[in-house]
Protein backbone atom coordinates (compact mmCIF):
# COMPACT_ATOMS: atom_id res chain seq x y z
CA UNK A 1 0.00 0.00 0.00
CA UNK A 2 1.39 3.37 -0.96
CA UNK A 3 1.87 6.22 1.44
CA UNK A 4 -0.90 8.16 -0.28
CA UNK A 5 -3.49 5.44 0.25
CA UNK A 6 -2.65 5.09 3.87
CA UNK A 7 -3.05 8.80 4.25
CA UNK A 8 -6.57 8.74 2.69
CA UNK A 9 -7.75 5.81 4.75
CA UNK A 10 -6.63 7.27 8.03
CA UNK A 11 -9.34 8.81 10.16
CA UNK A 12 -9.22 12.59 9.86
CA UNK A 13 -10.93 14.88 12.34
CA UNK A 14 -13.03 17.27 10.29
CA UNK A 15 -16.08 19.53 10.72
CA UNK A 16 -18.32 17.13 8.80
CA UNK A 17 -17.22 14.27 11.01
CA UNK A 18 -17.93 16.22 14.17
CA UNK A 19 -21.38 17.22 12.91
CA UNK A 20 -22.04 13.60 12.06
CA UNK A 21 -21.20 12.54 15.60
CA UNK A 22 -23.30 15.34 17.07
CA UNK A 23 -26.28 14.48 14.89
CA UNK A 24 -26.18 10.80 15.77
CA UNK A 25 -25.87 11.71 19.42
CA UNK A 26 -28.89 14.03 19.20
CA UNK A 27 -31.07 11.47 17.43
CA UNK A 28 -30.07 8.74 19.80
CA UNK A 29 -30.73 10.77 22.95
CA UNK A 30 -34.10 11.96 21.61
CA UNK A 31 -35.08 8.33 21.10
CA UNK A 32 -33.97 7.41 24.60
CA UNK A 33 -35.83 10.32 26.17
CA UNK A 34 -39.05 9.18 24.50
CA UNK A 35 -38.38 5.60 25.48
CA UNK A 36 -37.76 6.66 29.07
CA UNK A 37 -40.96 8.71 29.31
CA UNK A 38 -43.03 5.96 27.76
CA UNK A 39 -41.52 3.34 30.03
CA UNK A 40 -42.14 5.54 33.06
CA UNK A 41 -45.82 6.04 32.23
CA UNK A 42 -46.44 2.40 31.35
CA UNK A 43 -44.29 1.14 34.17
CA UNK A 44 -46.03 3.18 36.84
CA UNK A 45 -49.51 2.26 35.66
CA UNK A 46 -48.69 -1.40 35.18
CA UNK A 47 -46.79 -1.65 38.47
CA UNK A 48 -49.32 0.16 40.64
CA UNK A 49 -52.36 -1.00 38.69
CA UNK A 50 -51.42 -4.65 38.83
CA UNK A 51 -51.56 -4.47 42.64
CA UNK A 52 -55.28 -3.80 42.26
CA UNK A 53 -55.97 -6.03 39.30
CA UNK A 54 -54.03 -9.10 40.34
CA UNK A 55 -54.09 -10.95 43.63
CA UNK A 56 -51.59 -13.18 45.30
CA UNK A 57 -54.05 -16.00 45.81
CA UNK A 58 -56.01 -18.00 43.25
CA UNK A 59 -57.51 -17.07 40.81
CA UNK A 60 -54.79 -14.38 40.82
CA UNK A 61 -57.14 -11.89 39.25
CA UNK A 62 -59.22 -9.52 41.30
CA UNK A 63 -62.53 -10.75 39.87
CA UNK A 64 -64.61 -8.36 41.94
CA UNK A 65 -62.78 -5.40 40.39
CA UNK A 66 -64.02 -6.47 36.97
CA UNK A 67 -67.53 -7.56 37.91
CA UNK A 68 -68.78 -5.19 40.60
CA UNK A 69 -69.91 -1.61 40.68
CA UNK A 70 -67.91 1.01 42.58
CA UNK A 71 -68.75 1.30 46.25
CA UNK A 72 -67.69 3.41 49.16
CA UNK A 73 -64.95 1.91 51.26
CA UNK A 74 -65.38 1.88 55.01
CA UNK A 75 -62.39 1.70 57.27
CA UNK A 76 -63.03 1.09 60.93
CA UNK A 77 -61.63 -0.50 64.02
CA UNK A 78 -63.51 -3.48 65.42
CA UNK A 79 -62.39 -5.43 68.44
CA UNK A 80 -58.99 -3.86 68.23
CA UNK A 81 -58.57 -4.82 64.59
CA UNK A 82 -58.48 -2.46 61.62
CA UNK A 83 -60.90 -3.54 58.92
CA UNK A 84 -61.69 -2.37 55.38
CA UNK A 85 -65.04 -3.16 53.85
CA UNK A 86 -67.14 -2.11 50.91
CA UNK A 87 -70.51 -0.55 51.53
CA UNK A 88 -72.65 -3.67 51.13
CA UNK A 89 -70.26 -5.85 53.02
CA UNK A 90 -70.14 -3.31 55.83
CA UNK A 91 -73.92 -3.22 56.14
CA UNK A 92 -74.12 -7.01 56.19
CA UNK A 93 -71.37 -7.00 58.79
CA UNK A 94 -73.25 -4.56 60.97
CA UNK A 95 -76.39 -6.67 60.70
CA UNK A 96 -74.44 -9.70 61.82
CA UNK A 97 -72.63 -7.94 64.61
CA UNK A 98 -75.11 -5.66 66.41
CA UNK A 99 -72.33 -4.35 68.59
CA UNK A 100 -70.63 -2.90 65.54
CA UNK A 101 -73.55 -0.70 64.53
CA UNK A 102 -72.13 2.31 66.27
CA UNK A 103 -68.53 1.73 65.36
CA UNK A 104 -66.72 4.82 64.19
CA UNK A 105 -65.74 4.48 60.56
CA UNK A 106 -64.16 6.56 57.86
CA UNK A 107 -65.62 6.28 54.37
CA UNK A 108 -63.89 6.77 51.06
CA UNK A 109 -66.13 7.04 47.99
CA UNK A 110 -65.57 4.70 45.02
CA UNK A 111 -62.62 3.07 46.68
CA UNK A 112 -64.19 -0.36 47.01
CA UNK A 113 -66.00 -2.63 44.62
CA UNK A 114 -65.04 -2.62 40.97
CA UNK A 115 -65.40 -0.85 37.68
CA UNK A 116 -67.76 -3.14 35.77
CA UNK A 117 -70.29 -0.42 34.81
CA UNK A 118 -67.44 1.74 33.50
CA UNK A 119 -66.10 -1.07 31.32
CA UNK A 120 -69.57 -1.75 29.97
CA UNK A 121 -70.16 1.95 29.31
CA UNK A 122 -66.89 2.43 27.49
CA UNK A 123 -67.44 -0.67 25.35
CA UNK A 124 -70.91 0.57 24.41
CA UNK A 125 -69.58 4.05 23.61
CA UNK A 126 -66.79 2.64 21.46
CA UNK A 127 -69.02 0.25 19.52
CA UNK A 128 -71.76 2.80 18.87
CA UNK A 129 -69.47 5.63 17.85
CA UNK A 130 -67.44 3.25 15.68
CA UNK A 131 -70.58 2.21 13.82
CA UNK A 132 -71.71 5.81 13.29
CA UNK A 133 -68.25 7.07 12.36
CA UNK A 134 -67.61 4.25 9.89
CA UNK A 135 -70.99 4.60 8.22
CA UNK A 136 -70.78 8.36 7.87
CA UNK A 137 -67.04 8.53 7.25
CA UNK A 138 -66.73 5.81 4.64
CA UNK A 139 -69.78 7.10 2.78
CA UNK A 140 -68.40 10.62 2.75
CA UNK A 141 -64.99 9.38 1.64
CA UNK A 142 -66.52 7.34 -1.19
CA UNK A 143 -68.45 10.37 -2.32
CA UNK A 144 -65.48 12.73 -2.10
CA UNK A 145 -62.98 10.51 -3.85
CA UNK A 146 -65.14 8.49 -6.25
CA UNK A 147 -68.13 10.61 -7.19
CA UNK A 148 -67.54 14.30 -6.53
CA UNK A 149 -66.07 16.45 -9.29
CA UNK A 150 -62.62 17.36 -8.06
CA UNK A 151 -62.29 21.09 -7.77
CA UNK A 152 -62.19 23.97 -5.39
CA UNK A 153 -65.29 22.98 -3.47
CA UNK A 154 -64.04 19.46 -2.75
CA UNK A 155 -60.63 20.83 -1.80
CA UNK A 156 -62.31 23.25 0.60
CA UNK A 157 -64.36 20.41 2.10
CA UNK A 158 -61.21 18.32 2.58
CA UNK A 159 -59.50 21.24 4.26
CA UNK A 160 -62.47 21.72 6.57
CA UNK A 161 -62.37 18.03 7.50
CA UNK A 162 -58.65 18.23 8.24
CA UNK A 163 -59.25 21.29 10.40
CA UNK A 164 -61.91 19.40 12.30
CA UNK A 165 -59.16 17.05 13.43
CA UNK A 166 -57.42 19.95 15.13
CA UNK A 167 -60.44 21.05 17.16
CA UNK A 168 -59.82 20.46 20.90
CA UNK A 169 -61.88 17.68 22.42
CA UNK A 170 -63.49 20.00 24.96
CA UNK A 171 -64.97 21.96 22.07
CA UNK A 172 -66.49 18.75 20.71
CA UNK A 173 -67.85 18.08 24.18
CA UNK A 174 -69.49 21.49 24.38
CA UNK A 175 -70.78 21.16 20.83
CA UNK A 176 -72.35 17.83 21.74
CA UNK A 177 -73.82 19.40 24.85
CA UNK A 178 -75.30 22.25 22.85
CA UNK A 179 -76.62 20.29 19.89
CA UNK A 180 -77.46 16.81 21.09
CA UNK A 181 -78.04 17.18 24.81
CA UNK A 182 -79.83 20.51 24.91
CA UNK A 183 -81.13 21.44 21.47
CA UNK A 184 -82.22 17.94 20.39
CA UNK A 185 -83.15 17.21 23.99
CA UNK A 186 -81.43 13.85 24.09
CA UNK A 187 -80.17 14.60 27.61
CA UNK A 188 -76.97 13.03 28.86
CA UNK A 189 -77.26 9.78 26.96
CA UNK A 190 -75.44 7.05 25.10
CA UNK A 191 -76.67 8.33 21.76
CA UNK A 192 -75.46 11.88 22.45
CA UNK A 193 -72.06 10.43 23.38
CA UNK A 194 -71.99 8.25 20.28
CA UNK A 195 -72.57 11.16 17.95
CA UNK A 196 -70.10 13.41 19.77
CA UNK A 197 -67.35 10.78 19.70
CA UNK A 198 -68.21 9.86 16.10
CA UNK A 199 -67.87 13.49 15.01
CA UNK A 200 -64.53 13.64 16.73
CA UNK A 201 -63.18 10.59 14.97
CA UNK A 202 -64.71 11.42 11.57
CA UNK A 203 -61.68 13.33 10.23
CA UNK A 204 -59.49 10.30 10.89
CA UNK A 205 -61.99 7.93 9.29
CA UNK A 206 -62.55 10.11 6.22
CA UNK A 207 -58.88 10.84 5.64
CA UNK A 208 -57.89 7.21 6.13
CA UNK A 209 -60.70 6.00 3.87
CA UNK A 210 -59.78 8.42 1.13
CA UNK A 211 -56.14 7.35 1.31
CA UNK A 212 -57.12 3.70 1.18
CA UNK A 213 -59.48 4.26 -1.74
CA UNK A 214 -56.78 6.16 -3.60
CA UNK A 215 -54.34 3.31 -3.12
CA UNK A 216 -56.61 0.94 -5.06
CA UNK A 217 -55.21 0.94 -8.61
CA UNK A 218 -57.22 2.85 -11.20
CA UNK A 219 -57.07 -0.20 -13.44
CA UNK A 220 -59.46 -2.12 -11.20
CA UNK A 221 -62.07 0.59 -11.60
CA UNK A 222 -61.58 0.94 -15.34
CA UNK A 223 -61.57 -2.80 -15.87
CA UNK A 224 -64.81 -3.15 -13.99
CA UNK A 225 -66.54 -0.22 -15.68
CA UNK A 226 -65.41 -1.47 -19.08
CA UNK A 227 -67.25 -4.71 -18.39
CA UNK A 228 -70.49 -2.80 -17.98
CA UNK A 229 -70.53 -2.31 -14.23
CA UNK A 230 -72.17 0.74 -12.73
CA UNK A 231 -70.06 2.96 -10.55
CA UNK A 232 -71.61 1.62 -7.38
CA UNK A 233 -71.14 -2.00 -8.49
CA UNK A 234 -67.52 -1.18 -9.22
CA UNK A 235 -66.98 0.43 -5.84
CA UNK A 236 -68.80 -2.27 -3.92
CA UNK A 237 -67.22 -5.27 -5.63
CA UNK A 238 -63.90 -4.05 -6.85
CA UNK A 239 -62.74 -1.07 -4.81
CA UNK A 240 -64.08 -1.10 -1.26
CA UNK A 241 -63.07 -4.70 -0.47
CA UNK A 242 -59.45 -3.85 -1.26
CA UNK A 243 -59.58 -0.56 0.61
CA UNK A 244 -61.22 -2.07 3.68
CA UNK A 245 -58.08 -3.23 5.54
CA UNK A 246 -56.63 0.27 5.49
CA UNK A 247 -59.94 1.89 6.36
CA UNK A 248 -60.57 -0.44 9.30
CA UNK A 249 -57.11 -0.23 10.79
CA UNK A 250 -56.87 3.53 10.80
CA UNK A 251 -60.44 3.98 11.92
CA UNK A 252 -60.19 1.54 14.78
CA UNK A 253 -56.94 3.11 15.93
CA UNK A 254 -58.59 6.53 15.75
CA UNK A 255 -61.54 5.30 17.75
CA UNK A 256 -59.30 3.67 20.33
CA UNK A 257 -57.67 7.04 20.84
CA UNK A 258 -60.98 8.90 21.03
CA UNK A 259 -62.34 6.31 23.45
CA UNK A 260 -59.78 7.63 25.90
CA UNK A 261 -61.04 11.18 25.73
CA UNK A 262 -62.89 12.47 28.77
CA UNK A 263 -63.93 15.90 27.58
CA UNK A 264 -66.33 14.86 24.79
CA UNK A 265 -68.30 12.50 27.02
CA UNK A 266 -68.29 14.38 30.32
CA UNK A 267 -71.14 16.64 29.19
CA UNK A 268 -72.85 14.26 26.80
CA UNK A 269 -72.85 10.68 28.01
CA UNK A 270 -71.02 10.02 31.22
CA UNK A 271 -72.45 9.75 34.72
CA UNK A 272 -70.29 9.98 37.80
CA UNK A 273 -72.14 7.05 39.21
CA UNK A 274 -75.14 5.07 38.13
CA UNK A 275 -76.64 2.16 39.99
CA UNK A 276 -78.26 0.45 37.05
CA UNK A 277 -76.38 -1.29 34.31
CA UNK A 278 -77.38 -0.19 30.80
CA UNK A 279 -79.64 -3.19 30.25
CA UNK A 280 -81.37 -2.95 33.62
CA UNK A 281 -84.71 -1.29 34.19
CA UNK A 282 -85.53 -0.52 30.56
CA UNK A 283 -89.17 0.00 29.73
CA UNK A 284 -88.69 0.43 25.99
CA UNK A 285 -85.97 0.05 23.37
CA UNK A 286 -85.42 3.79 23.13
CA UNK A 287 -84.62 3.89 26.85
CA UNK A 288 -81.44 2.06 26.02
CA UNK A 289 -80.20 4.86 23.78
CA UNK A 290 -81.30 7.69 26.01
CA UNK A 291 -79.56 6.66 29.21
CA UNK A 292 -76.26 7.90 30.49
CA UNK A 293 -73.47 5.46 31.31
CA UNK A 294 -70.38 5.31 33.43
CA UNK A 295 -67.16 5.29 31.44
CA UNK A 296 -63.56 4.44 32.22
CA UNK A 297 -61.87 7.75 31.31
CA UNK A 298 -64.47 9.74 33.18
CA UNK A 299 -64.19 7.43 36.16
CA UNK A 300 -60.43 7.95 36.23
CA UNK A 301 -61.03 11.69 36.09
CA UNK A 302 -63.53 11.54 38.93
CA UNK A 303 -61.51 9.34 41.25
CA UNK A 304 -58.35 11.33 40.55
CA UNK A 305 -59.67 14.85 40.86
CA UNK A 306 -63.18 15.04 42.22
CA UNK A 307 -62.82 13.24 45.52
CA UNK A 308 -60.43 13.61 48.43
CA UNK A 309 -57.22 11.75 47.71
CA UNK A 310 -55.73 9.13 49.97
CA UNK A 311 -54.03 5.77 49.83
CA UNK A 312 -57.37 4.02 49.19
CA UNK A 313 -58.35 6.04 46.15
CA UNK A 314 -54.96 5.43 44.60
CA UNK A 315 -55.75 1.75 44.23
CA UNK A 316 -58.83 2.38 42.16
CA UNK A 317 -57.11 5.10 40.12
CA UNK A 318 -54.24 2.93 39.01
CA UNK A 319 -56.40 -0.16 38.71
CA UNK A 320 -58.81 1.63 36.39
CA UNK A 321 -56.00 3.18 34.37
CA UNK A 322 -54.36 -0.21 33.99
CA UNK A 323 -57.56 -1.89 32.81
CA UNK A 324 -58.23 0.98 30.44
CA UNK A 325 -54.71 0.79 29.02
CA UNK A 326 -55.17 -2.92 28.42
CA UNK A 327 -58.50 -2.39 26.65
CA UNK A 328 -57.07 0.26 24.33
CA UNK A 329 -54.00 -1.89 23.65
CA UNK A 330 -56.26 -4.83 22.84
CA UNK A 331 -58.31 -2.78 20.39
CA UNK A 332 -55.17 -1.48 18.69
CA UNK A 333 -53.58 -4.91 18.48
CA UNK A 334 -56.68 -6.55 17.11
CA UNK A 335 -57.04 -3.87 14.44
CA UNK A 336 -53.49 -4.51 13.32
CA UNK A 337 -54.04 -8.27 13.28
CA UNK A 338 -57.23 -7.74 11.31
CA UNK A 339 -55.39 -5.62 8.78
CA UNK A 340 -52.68 -8.20 8.30
CA UNK A 341 -55.27 -10.89 7.80
CA UNK A 342 -57.27 -8.90 5.26
CA UNK A 343 -54.15 -7.72 3.49
CA UNK A 344 -53.07 -11.24 2.80
CA UNK A 345 -56.41 -11.95 1.24
CA UNK A 346 -56.19 -9.10 -1.23
CA UNK A 347 -52.73 -8.55 -2.56
CA UNK A 348 -51.75 -6.95 -5.77
Amino acid at each position, binding site marked *: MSALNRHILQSQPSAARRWEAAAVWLFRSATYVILFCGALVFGTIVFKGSKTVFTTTAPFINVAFFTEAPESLYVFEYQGQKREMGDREFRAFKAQHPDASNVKSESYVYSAGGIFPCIVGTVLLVLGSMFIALTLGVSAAVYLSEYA*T*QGRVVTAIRLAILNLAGVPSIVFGLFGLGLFVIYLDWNVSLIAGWFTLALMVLPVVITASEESLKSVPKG*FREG*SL*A*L*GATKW*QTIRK*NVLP*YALPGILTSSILGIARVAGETAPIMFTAAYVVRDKLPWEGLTSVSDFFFQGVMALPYHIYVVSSKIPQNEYTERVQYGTAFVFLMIVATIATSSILLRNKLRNRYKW
Partner: protein
Amino acid sequence: MDIKTSFNSSSSGRSIPVTSSPVGPTLIDIDHVDFYYGTSQALHDINLKIEEKKVTAFIGPSGCGKSTLLRCLNRMNDLIDGTRVAKGQIKIRGINIYDPSVDVIELRKRVGMVFQKSNPFPKSIYENITYGLRLQGRSNKSDLDAVVEKSLRGAALWDEVKDRLHTSGLGLSGGQQQRLCIARAIAVEPEVILMDEPCSALDPIATVKVEELIQELRTKFTIVIVTHNMQQAARCSDKTAFFYMGKLIEFADTRAIFMNPANAQTEAYVSGRFG
Protein backbone atom coordinates in the same frame (compact mmCIF):
# COMPACT_ATOMS: atom_id res chain seq x y z
CA MET B 1 -83.30 3.33 -25.93
CA ASP B 2 -82.60 -0.35 -26.07
CA ILE B 3 -79.22 -0.23 -27.59
CA LYS B 4 -78.84 -3.99 -27.40
CA THR B 5 -81.73 -4.64 -29.75
CA SER B 6 -80.49 -2.06 -32.15
CA PHE B 7 -77.04 -3.60 -32.11
CA ASN B 8 -78.30 -7.01 -32.99
CA SER B 9 -80.62 -5.91 -35.75
CA SER B 10 -78.81 -6.63 -38.94
CA SER B 11 -80.93 -4.33 -41.04
CA SER B 12 -79.22 -1.21 -39.75
CA GLY B 13 -75.54 -0.55 -40.29
CA ARG B 14 -75.11 0.13 -43.94
CA SER B 15 -71.86 1.56 -45.08
CA ILE B 16 -70.54 3.83 -47.67
CA PRO B 17 -67.22 2.61 -49.01
CA VAL B 18 -64.44 4.94 -47.97
CA THR B 19 -61.37 3.12 -49.11
CA SER B 20 -60.26 0.51 -51.54
CA SER B 21 -61.02 -3.21 -51.49
CA PRO B 22 -62.48 -5.25 -49.78
CA VAL B 23 -65.02 -3.25 -47.84
CA GLY B 24 -67.16 -4.72 -45.07
CA PRO B 25 -70.16 -3.11 -43.48
CA THR B 26 -69.41 -0.15 -41.23
CA LEU B 27 -69.90 -0.85 -37.55
CA ILE B 28 -68.60 2.33 -35.99
CA ASP B 29 -69.02 5.59 -37.76
CA ILE B 30 -66.95 8.42 -36.29
CA ASP B 31 -68.42 11.52 -37.81
CA HIS B 32 -66.58 14.86 -37.60
CA VAL B 33 -65.67 14.50 -33.93
CA ASP B 34 -64.03 17.26 -31.89
CA PHE B 35 -62.99 16.27 -28.39
CA TYR B 36 -61.83 18.42 -25.49
CA TYR B 37 -60.10 17.85 -22.19
CA GLY B 38 -61.34 20.94 -20.40
CA THR B 39 -60.28 23.73 -22.71
CA SER B 40 -57.59 21.91 -24.65
CA GLN B 41 -58.73 20.27 -27.82
CA ALA B 42 -57.46 16.71 -28.18
CA LEU B 43 -59.23 15.63 -31.36
CA HIS B 44 -59.88 17.75 -34.43
CA ASP B 45 -62.66 16.81 -36.79
CA ILE B 46 -62.09 13.06 -36.83
CA ASN B 47 -63.86 11.23 -39.60
CA LEU B 48 -63.48 7.49 -39.66
CA LYS B 49 -65.51 4.40 -40.46
CA ILE B 50 -64.58 1.19 -38.70
CA GLU B 51 -65.64 -1.95 -40.46
CA GLU B 52 -67.24 -4.96 -38.88
CA LYS B 53 -65.08 -8.03 -38.12
CA LYS B 54 -61.92 -6.25 -39.13
CA VAL B 55 -58.88 -5.24 -37.14
CA THR B 56 -58.37 -1.50 -37.25
CA ALA B 57 -55.12 -0.11 -35.90
CA PHE B 58 -54.60 3.44 -34.62
CA ILE B 59 -50.99 4.53 -34.87
CA GLY B 60 -49.17 7.78 -34.27
CA PRO B 61 -46.70 9.42 -31.93
CA SER B 62 -47.44 9.89 -28.21
CA GLY B 63 -50.12 12.45 -27.51
CA CYS B 64 -51.58 12.27 -31.01
CA GLY B 65 -55.04 11.44 -29.71
CA LYS B 66 -55.26 7.79 -30.71
CA SER B 67 -55.96 6.54 -27.18
CA THR B 68 -58.38 9.39 -26.60
CA LEU B 69 -60.36 8.39 -29.67
CA LEU B 70 -60.32 4.75 -28.62
CA ARG B 71 -61.68 5.65 -25.20
CA CYS B 72 -64.41 7.69 -26.84
CA LEU B 73 -65.75 4.52 -28.42
CA ASN B 74 -66.92 3.05 -25.10
CA ARG B 75 -67.18 6.42 -23.36
CA MET B 76 -64.41 5.64 -20.88
CA ASN B 77 -63.49 9.31 -21.19
CA ASP B 78 -66.66 10.08 -19.25
CA LEU B 79 -64.70 9.11 -16.15
CA ILE B 80 -62.40 12.09 -16.55
CA ASP B 81 -63.85 15.36 -15.31
CA GLY B 82 -64.22 18.08 -17.89
CA THR B 83 -64.07 15.96 -21.03
CA ARG B 84 -66.60 16.42 -23.80
CA VAL B 85 -67.35 15.66 -27.38
CA ALA B 86 -67.92 19.17 -28.59
CA LYS B 87 -68.91 18.41 -32.15
CA GLY B 88 -69.84 15.45 -34.28
CA GLN B 89 -71.20 12.02 -33.52
CA ILE B 90 -69.93 8.53 -32.94
CA LYS B 91 -72.45 6.04 -34.23
CA ILE B 92 -72.39 2.35 -33.59
CA ARG B 93 -74.83 0.55 -35.86
CA GLY B 94 -76.38 3.90 -36.59
CA ILE B 95 -76.92 4.88 -32.96
CA ASN B 96 -75.15 7.96 -31.64
CA ILE B 97 -73.51 6.68 -28.47
CA TYR B 98 -73.28 10.19 -27.04
CA ASP B 99 -77.03 10.61 -27.24
CA PRO B 100 -78.39 11.31 -23.74
CA SER B 101 -80.79 8.38 -24.07
CA VAL B 102 -78.00 5.85 -24.54
CA ASP B 103 -77.31 3.60 -21.58
CA VAL B 104 -73.55 3.76 -21.03
CA ILE B 105 -73.61 0.51 -19.05
CA GLU B 106 -75.22 -1.30 -21.96
CA LEU B 107 -72.77 0.33 -24.37
CA ARG B 108 -69.78 -0.91 -22.39
CA LYS B 109 -71.16 -4.43 -22.37
CA ARG B 110 -71.22 -4.30 -26.17
CA VAL B 111 -67.87 -2.54 -26.53
CA GLY B 112 -65.29 -4.28 -24.37
CA MET B 113 -61.84 -3.00 -23.57
CA VAL B 114 -58.37 -4.33 -22.89
CA PHE B 115 -55.99 -1.91 -21.23
CA GLN B 116 -52.34 -1.06 -21.70
CA LYS B 117 -51.43 -2.26 -18.26
CA SER B 118 -52.99 -5.65 -17.69
CA ASN B 119 -55.44 -5.26 -14.85
CA PRO B 120 -56.70 -8.62 -13.62
CA PHE B 121 -58.68 -8.14 -10.44
CA PRO B 122 -57.12 -9.54 -7.26
CA LYS B 123 -59.52 -12.45 -7.40
CA SER B 124 -59.29 -15.98 -8.74
CA ILE B 125 -59.02 -16.59 -12.47
CA TYR B 126 -62.54 -17.96 -12.38
CA GLU B 127 -63.90 -14.90 -10.59
CA ASN B 128 -62.12 -12.61 -13.03
CA ILE B 129 -63.85 -14.23 -16.01
CA THR B 130 -67.27 -14.36 -14.37
CA TYR B 131 -67.13 -10.81 -13.02
CA GLY B 132 -68.97 -9.29 -15.97
CA LEU B 133 -71.53 -12.09 -16.03
CA ARG B 134 -72.30 -11.78 -12.35
CA LEU B 135 -72.92 -8.07 -12.89
CA GLN B 136 -75.66 -9.13 -15.27
CA GLY B 137 -77.10 -11.34 -12.57
CA ARG B 138 -75.99 -14.64 -14.08
CA SER B 139 -75.10 -17.04 -11.29
CA ASN B 140 -75.93 -20.52 -12.59
CA LYS B 141 -72.80 -22.52 -11.91
CA SER B 142 -72.82 -24.77 -14.98
CA ASP B 143 -73.58 -21.75 -17.11
CA LEU B 144 -70.65 -19.83 -15.63
CA ASP B 145 -68.35 -22.85 -15.88
CA ALA B 146 -69.15 -23.12 -19.57
CA VAL B 147 -68.45 -19.44 -20.19
CA VAL B 148 -65.18 -19.62 -18.27
CA GLU B 149 -63.95 -22.51 -20.39
CA LYS B 150 -65.16 -20.94 -23.61
CA SER B 151 -63.61 -17.57 -22.84
CA LEU B 152 -60.30 -19.01 -21.72
CA ARG B 153 -60.15 -21.19 -24.80
CA GLY B 154 -61.05 -18.13 -26.85
CA ALA B 155 -58.14 -16.28 -25.29
CA ALA B 156 -55.79 -19.26 -25.81
CA LEU B 157 -55.25 -19.55 -22.10
CA TRP B 158 -57.32 -22.61 -21.16
CA ASP B 159 -54.57 -25.19 -21.39
CA GLU B 160 -52.25 -23.09 -19.25
CA VAL B 161 -54.66 -22.38 -16.42
CA LYS B 162 -57.35 -25.06 -16.44
CA ASP B 163 -55.86 -26.72 -13.36
CA ARG B 164 -55.70 -23.56 -11.30
CA LEU B 165 -58.87 -21.69 -12.08
CA HIS B 166 -59.39 -20.88 -8.44
CA THR B 167 -55.97 -19.39 -7.79
CA SER B 168 -55.37 -15.65 -8.02
CA GLY B 169 -55.24 -14.09 -11.45
CA LEU B 170 -52.29 -12.06 -10.22
CA GLY B 171 -50.20 -15.22 -9.98
CA LEU B 172 -50.03 -15.43 -13.77
CA SER B 173 -47.19 -14.08 -15.89
CA GLY B 174 -47.54 -10.69 -17.58
CA GLY B 175 -48.59 -12.14 -20.92
CA GLN B 176 -51.01 -14.57 -19.31
CA GLN B 177 -52.50 -11.71 -17.30
CA GLN B 178 -53.14 -9.76 -20.47
CA ARG B 179 -54.77 -12.78 -22.11
CA LEU B 180 -56.84 -13.22 -18.96
CA CYS B 181 -58.04 -9.66 -19.43
CA ILE B 182 -58.92 -10.47 -23.02
CA ALA B 183 -60.78 -13.58 -21.85
CA ARG B 184 -62.61 -11.46 -19.29
CA ALA B 185 -63.60 -9.02 -22.02
CA ILE B 186 -64.88 -11.68 -24.42
CA ALA B 187 -66.79 -13.48 -21.64
CA VAL B 188 -69.55 -10.87 -21.85
CA GLU B 189 -69.69 -11.41 -25.62
CA PRO B 190 -69.14 -7.87 -26.82
CA GLU B 191 -69.33 -6.92 -30.43
CA VAL B 192 -66.27 -4.72 -30.39
CA ILE B 193 -63.04 -5.13 -28.45
CA LEU B 194 -60.93 -2.04 -27.93
CA MET B 195 -57.28 -2.67 -27.18
CA ASP B 196 -55.20 0.15 -25.79
CA GLU B 197 -51.57 -0.77 -26.47
CA PRO B 198 -52.17 -4.30 -25.16
CA CYS B 199 -48.60 -5.45 -25.70
CA SER B 200 -46.60 -2.44 -24.61
CA ALA B 201 -45.76 -4.01 -21.25
CA LEU B 202 -45.13 -7.51 -22.58
CA ASP B 203 -41.98 -9.32 -23.63
CA PRO B 204 -41.60 -10.35 -27.30
CA ILE B 205 -42.82 -13.92 -26.80
CA ALA B 206 -45.93 -12.84 -24.92
CA THR B 207 -46.49 -10.20 -27.59
CA VAL B 208 -46.46 -12.84 -30.32
CA LYS B 209 -49.07 -14.84 -28.43
CA VAL B 210 -51.37 -11.86 -28.05
CA GLU B 211 -50.94 -11.00 -31.73
CA GLU B 212 -51.80 -14.55 -32.72
CA LEU B 213 -54.82 -14.29 -30.47
CA ILE B 214 -55.91 -11.12 -32.24
CA GLN B 215 -55.78 -13.02 -35.51
CA GLU B 216 -58.16 -15.62 -34.09
CA LEU B 217 -60.49 -13.10 -32.50
CA ARG B 218 -60.97 -11.14 -35.73
CA THR B 219 -63.37 -13.78 -37.01
CA LYS B 220 -65.81 -13.11 -34.18
CA PHE B 221 -65.18 -9.56 -33.06
CA THR B 222 -64.50 -6.16 -34.46
CA ILE B 223 -61.18 -5.10 -33.01
CA VAL B 224 -59.74 -1.64 -32.67
CA ILE B 225 -56.15 -1.60 -31.46
CA VAL B 226 -54.00 1.33 -30.46
CA THR B 227 -50.33 0.60 -30.82
CA HIS B 228 -47.00 2.32 -30.64
CA ASN B 229 -45.45 -0.54 -32.46
CA MET B 230 -45.74 -0.06 -36.20
CA GLN B 231 -44.67 -3.60 -36.95
CA GLN B 232 -47.52 -4.76 -34.80
CA ALA B 233 -49.99 -2.66 -36.73
CA ALA B 234 -48.56 -4.01 -39.96
CA ARG B 235 -48.74 -7.61 -38.74
CA CYS B 236 -52.21 -7.69 -37.18
CA SER B 237 -54.45 -5.11 -38.75
CA ASP B 238 -56.57 -4.84 -41.85
CA LYS B 239 -56.93 -1.09 -41.74
CA THR B 240 -54.68 1.50 -40.21
CA ALA B 241 -55.39 5.05 -39.15
CA PHE B 242 -52.46 7.41 -38.65
CA PHE B 243 -52.98 10.27 -36.22
CA TYR B 244 -50.84 13.29 -35.62
CA MET B 245 -51.48 16.22 -33.28
CA GLY B 246 -55.11 15.26 -32.74
CA LYS B 247 -55.87 14.97 -36.43
CA LEU B 248 -56.50 11.93 -38.55
CA ILE B 249 -53.84 12.19 -41.23
CA GLU B 250 -54.51 9.08 -43.21
CA PHE B 251 -56.81 6.09 -43.02
CA ALA B 252 -56.51 3.24 -45.46
CA ASP B 253 -55.75 -0.44 -45.85
CA THR B 254 -52.81 -1.34 -43.68
CA ARG B 255 -50.85 -2.49 -46.72
CA ALA B 256 -51.37 0.87 -48.38
CA ILE B 257 -50.35 2.82 -45.27
CA PHE B 258 -47.10 0.95 -44.95
CA MET B 259 -46.21 0.31 -48.58
CA ASN B 260 -47.59 3.30 -50.32
CA PRO B 261 -48.75 6.07 -48.01
CA ALA B 262 -50.56 8.91 -49.70
CA ASN B 263 -49.48 11.51 -47.18
CA ALA B 264 -45.93 12.73 -46.65
CA GLN B 265 -46.32 12.83 -42.85
CA THR B 266 -47.54 9.24 -42.82
CA GLU B 267 -44.60 8.19 -44.89
CA ALA B 268 -42.20 9.99 -42.58
CA TYR B 269 -43.74 8.30 -39.55
CA VAL B 270 -43.98 4.74 -40.87
CA SER B 271 -40.46 4.93 -42.19
CA GLY B 272 -39.29 5.96 -38.72
CA ARG B 273 -38.19 9.47 -39.47
CA PHE B 274 -40.13 10.94 -36.54
CA GLY B 275 -42.34 9.97 -33.62
